[in-house]
């Protein structure tokens, strides 16, 4: 048993960190990038692909160079550390996972993604879905050999600038059925797209379809399984991302406590604040540990895998909120300003809890997979 990264992975981590560091100078421009017309930086995205950050997310079975829990953890911790707005989650994790869990997928499709020549988005959440896994109202209408989608996906990360959209739609059963839905691919050009920014400075879109021609990727139990794999892959990647952001918050706060003076001494010399910093530190270490456990069992049987990812997402949700709230409070007024970078990390930490199931949702899932 050991917890060290292999030499190879250390190198991956270092080269990615360097690239991200250069690009996101002072980590200050993620709002600008995501508010730009394109919504992401194409050149940078290409560079990420070139140093292997995308193929690190794909298993060798599909022509990738990674795809293990550890690879995903490394990449997404860095994404959290640098507040990267490029579509790693939507194209790199959600779309790739749903594609690789579909039938007869061609490796060339994945190559397009990993080479950054195509961007995919994944649409599942509808306006009322909240975190219900199979609450799908978008309709799939089969006519002869073709299928057409009608409905609305409200919270599609990077859904505006993606080339292709993968989404869930229902062809039978009631709105909650685990059966009777499929995963489909549709072309961006066939959707009514409304683009918006999220409160934490990322990019998403609401997509409307009306009898839009689609391509079936899988359906029924295959679709259910692929959907679960996708949602859990997303929850796992977000958990790792959260760790990166927590660490930045902690470091910024520690630095501030050492330099900011009140009543003639650094505020970090006040015992009440020190003790709260230790509480924060403990929860960050706990969250890290939970993510490591999920990473280590990412290829295990599904019950174990899902249980540990739900544990991680639950803990990361709780810890992320604690870190966000305590780091703001320990800073005081300056943390309330737009100018000071902390709020961007705090927002990301909290909003991660709004994606792919919040801490309450994953607590229930943990119970489910632990046979409570």
């Amino acid at each position: 048993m050991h917890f060290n990264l292999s030499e190879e992975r250390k190198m991956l981590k270092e080269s990615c960190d360097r690239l991200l560091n250069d690009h996101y100078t002072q980590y200050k421009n993620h709002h600008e990038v995501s508010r730009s017309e394109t919504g992401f930086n194409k050149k940078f995205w290409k560079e990420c692909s070139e140093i292997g950050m995308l193929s690190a997310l794909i298993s060798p079975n599909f022509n990738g160079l990674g795809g293990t829990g550890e690879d995903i953890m490394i990449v997404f911790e860095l994404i959290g550390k640098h507040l990267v707005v490029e579509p790693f989650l939507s194209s790199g994790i959600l779309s790739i996972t749903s594609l690789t869990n579909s039938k007869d997928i061609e490796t060339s499709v994945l190559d397009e993604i990993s080479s950054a020549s195509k961007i995919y988005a994944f649409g599942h959440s509808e306006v009322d879905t909240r975190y219900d896994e199979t609450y799908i109202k978008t309709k799939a209408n089969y006519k002869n050999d073709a299928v057409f989608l009608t409905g609305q996906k409200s919270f599609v990360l990077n859904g505006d600038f993606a080339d292709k959209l993968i989404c869930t739609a229902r062809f039978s059963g009631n709105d909650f059925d685990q059966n009777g839905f499929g995963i489909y691919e549709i072309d961006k050009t066939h959707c009514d797209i409304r683009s918006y920014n999220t409160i934490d400075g990322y990019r998403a879109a609401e997509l409307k379809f009306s009898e839009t021609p689609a391509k079936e990727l899988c359906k029924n139990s295959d679709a259910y399984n692929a959907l679960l794999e996708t949602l859990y892959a997303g929850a796992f990647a977000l958990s790792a991302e959260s760790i990166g952001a927590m660490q930045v918050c902690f470091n910024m706060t520690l630095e501030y406590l050492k330099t900011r003076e009140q009543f003639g001494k650094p505020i970090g010399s006040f015992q009440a604040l020190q003790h709260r910093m230790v509480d924060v530190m403990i929860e960050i270490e706990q969250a890290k540990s939970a993510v490591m456990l999920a990473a280590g069992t990412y290829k295990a049987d599904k019950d174990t895998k899902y249980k540990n990812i739900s544990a991680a997402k639950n803990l990361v949700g709780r810890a992320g909120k604690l870190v966000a709230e305590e780091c703001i409070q320990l800073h005081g007024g300056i943390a309330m300003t737009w100018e000071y970078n902390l709020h961007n990390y705090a927002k990301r930490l909290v909003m991660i809890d709004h994606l792919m199931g919040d801490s309450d949702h994953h607590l229930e899932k943990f119970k489910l997979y632990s046979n409570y």
Partner: protein
Amino acid sequence: MDFNFTQDENEFRQEIKDWLSENLSQRISNKVKKFQRLDKNDYEEFMKALSAKGWLAVNWPEEHGGTGWSNTQKHIFEEEIVKAGAPRIVPFGLNMLGPVLMEFGNEEQKKYYLPRILNCDDWWAQGYSEPGSGSDLASLKTKAIDNGDHYIVNGQKTWTTLGQFANKIFCLVKTDTDCKPQNGISFLLIDIDSPGIEVRPIITLDGEHEVNEVWLKDVKVSKENLLGEENKGWTYAKYLLTHERTGIAGVPNSKSAINHLKVIARKTYKNGKPLIQDPLFSSQIAELEIDLKAMEIFNLRAISSAESGKAPVMESSLLKIKGSIIRQKTSDLLRKAIGPQALPYISEQFDEGWNQETIGPEYAGPLAKQYFIYRKISIYGGSNEIQKNIVAKSEFRM
């Protein structure tokens, strides 16, 4: 012990309600309820109406044009204006400067300034905090140098709420640096359009402009504008800070926020059932509601003890702390309730008259933003940590 409002108090409440329903414009209360941005006119429209009715200076004695209301009446009034969706009554002139003027100002100052506050002729800003001294007033650096019949003021103030609308600012300044820091502070009343003053916006983490920095460079301030005595400002500043804090717990705001939360939790579904029926989520709401009910009584106890003449200093600090926790937890549950609907941020939604379709229900729009900005509640006006220090010092005598 008697928990019931008297007949008179109930009639008083009805009178407030009736007046509000006729005099608070639908336009403004709509903006407030939708968390839209208020401009100077919005505030003034409501305050002028109150002033005309004689209800603006809630905390002032009648001799100065105040209401002369009991603490219980003030509490009822506060509840009703929050319920009605009124904008808040801007407190800097009315509740901060006013009482200090009455206690320590000279006759001319009282005669000149008090009516102007009452008539909304002046919009005062607060010049307490400085970049280096958040909670530590004794360390302030803005200096006023004696120059005959006037001072020359240099320095910087910060966290000046709604300073962009103000024409006046009251400032704590150092007039003597050779003594204990507390002894060298004076309290100046300054025109904000004096040459050398610049008000610069501070954009807060919600992207909004409500607070400001105020830069003072060689600003000439006549000695007539000194409040009370030179170097006694510390006393006035403390008087201002401890005076009138019955509303500090924010009970009416939390009440309406929890009601809002329950409405949303009825409209939001989880596994096919209203979220309010979810055992875990509803327990979080219920615990909060229990805490709030208790705090409401705690607050009334403090009000009632103030009525009988005891200054509720310790209670104020405890209520400020608990009040901030409850408001923040409510905003936390509000954002949690709506799940992914918390994600979209459409800044235009918070402009008056915006009527496009939202992503998700309209109520979802402000909730995440609110959660983040409400972090300030435990920071401003003496952070919760400072409040705890105060209680430890005064009550525990440690």
